[in-house]
């Protein structure tokens, strides 16, 4: 009997896994011993880190997109039919169209989504660039902006831990280029007691913000936004005035996860070493949608995906477990317009960034271009 692998979600994690499996077991797929089916929400695949450049007019929207079918190995069956219910007891997924797919192994890779509506006034009063619609509106708002108080507000939980800092420094450059920096002031707010979750990054960015004249508020968790009065207030009791509010809205996992009873807030309880759903031995979880307390980032999705591929291939071909995920995360950090550094860490190794250099900055720019190769499973 042919073994069925069903992947829900065709973002970064799902795509790397599907293509990676095909590279290793294409002969089994051709023989009909294994099938790989992916369920997605769209014909197109968006390069999310590219959204960072949209509000500043530094990228063309079409550069963000590729046809998902073209990124996927031809051996993969791909349906644009969002999962509406995931039944891990009955081992089947029901889609929006009513189609039902059974599986031998299920991969949950439904990512995370923005929920600005969970904070009163945020959806009406704030701008964000974490989705395309928001990034377009922010581009329009920046085009009109003629100086004033800008608040860059970070909420937990959110994906891509370094993006808020990049947004802050890019905003400053943008306002300088526009000639309105002398009439402007940026205040960056962060949920915990330092400027970034990673201590070495926090240590680097404090003097960098001081030098740039960027103000900051730590221990700031948004309670509400008042779009009329143009104020933002924290749970900690601080209120800031703004003329332009840029937020990283809080995130949740996909609705289908919570509605199928697979995890509060859409986060799936996941074994942090095996990447199996807790209580299942045939449901892998990968990328932003796990509840593992590590960074929700493309690099995490990538390292996790490599582990899932190895284990699925071993299970299918040899009936054995291959290896555990070691918690590896790697992040490039832009330390200015021309220099960058990187940090990596895993469950056993604390982060320890190297000295910033221009070469690393160029490597990050190059890496942006390599995204499509890694999604194809070639990196």
């Amino acid at each position: 009997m042919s073994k069925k692998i069903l992947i829900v979600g065709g973002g970064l994690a799902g795509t790397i896994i599907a293509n990676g499996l095909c590279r290793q077991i294409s002969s089994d797929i051709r023989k009909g011993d294994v099938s790989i089916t992916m369920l997605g929400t769209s014909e197109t695949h968006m390069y999310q880190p590219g959204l960072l450049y949209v509000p500043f007019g530094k990228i063309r929207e079409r550069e963000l997109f590729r046809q998902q079918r073209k990124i996927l190995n031809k051996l993969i069956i791909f349906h644009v039919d969002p999962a509406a219910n995931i039944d891990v007891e009955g081992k089947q997924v029901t889609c929006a169209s009513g189609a039902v797919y059974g599986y031998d192994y299920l991969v949950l890779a439904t990512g995370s989504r923005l929920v600005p509506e969970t904070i009163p006034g945020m959806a009406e009063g704030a701008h964000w660039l974490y989705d395309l619609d928001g990034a377009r509106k922010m581009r329009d708002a920046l085009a009109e902006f003629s100086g004033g108080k800008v608040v860059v507000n970070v909420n937990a939980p959110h994906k891509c831990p370094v993006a808020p800092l990049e947004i802050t420094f890019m905003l400053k450059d943008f306002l300088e280029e526009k000639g309105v920096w002398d009439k402007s002031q940026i205040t960056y707010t962060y949920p915990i007691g330092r400027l970034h979750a990673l201590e070495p990054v926090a240590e680097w960015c404090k003097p960098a913000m001081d030098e740039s004249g960027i103000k900051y508020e730590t221990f700031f968790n948004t309670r509400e936004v008042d779009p009329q009065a143009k104020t933002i207030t924290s749970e900690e009791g601080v209120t800031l005035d703004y003329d332009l509010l840029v937020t990283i809205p809080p995130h949740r996992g996909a609705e289908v996860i919570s509605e199928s009873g697979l995890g509060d807030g859409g986060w799936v309880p996941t074994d942090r070493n095996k990447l199996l759903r807790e209580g299942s031995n045939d449901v892998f979880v990968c990328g932003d949608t796990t509840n593992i307390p590590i960074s929700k980032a493309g690099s995490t999705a990538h390292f996790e995906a490599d582990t899932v591929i190895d284990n699925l291939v071993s299970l299918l071909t040899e009936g054995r477990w291959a290896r555990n995920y070691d918690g590896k995360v790697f992040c490039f950090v832009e330390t200015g317009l021309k220099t960058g550094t990187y940090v990596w860490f895993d469950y056993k190794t604390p982060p320890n960034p190297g000295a910033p250099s221009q070469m690393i900055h160029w490597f990050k720019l190059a890496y942006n271009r390599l995204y499509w190769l890694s999604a194809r499973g070639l990196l």
Partner: protein
Amino acid sequence: MSERRIIDARGSYCPGPLMELIAALKLLQVGDEVEILSTDQGTARDVPEWTAKVGHETVESGDKDGHWYVVVRKMK
């Protein structure tokens, strides 16, 4: 019925225990508790400081087998 959720953030450097606590509290009801396990000394200080600032309750905290733990009750 109030519940207690455990977050095992040992060996987690980013986003770290306090950010995990903040995210978890958003999904819980008033009266529910979160127990965080952590190996990060920095947030051993931060968590009680933040909880007091915001008005949640630190139920207990301490060291256990080479890691640090704190139990927080959601108060509002």
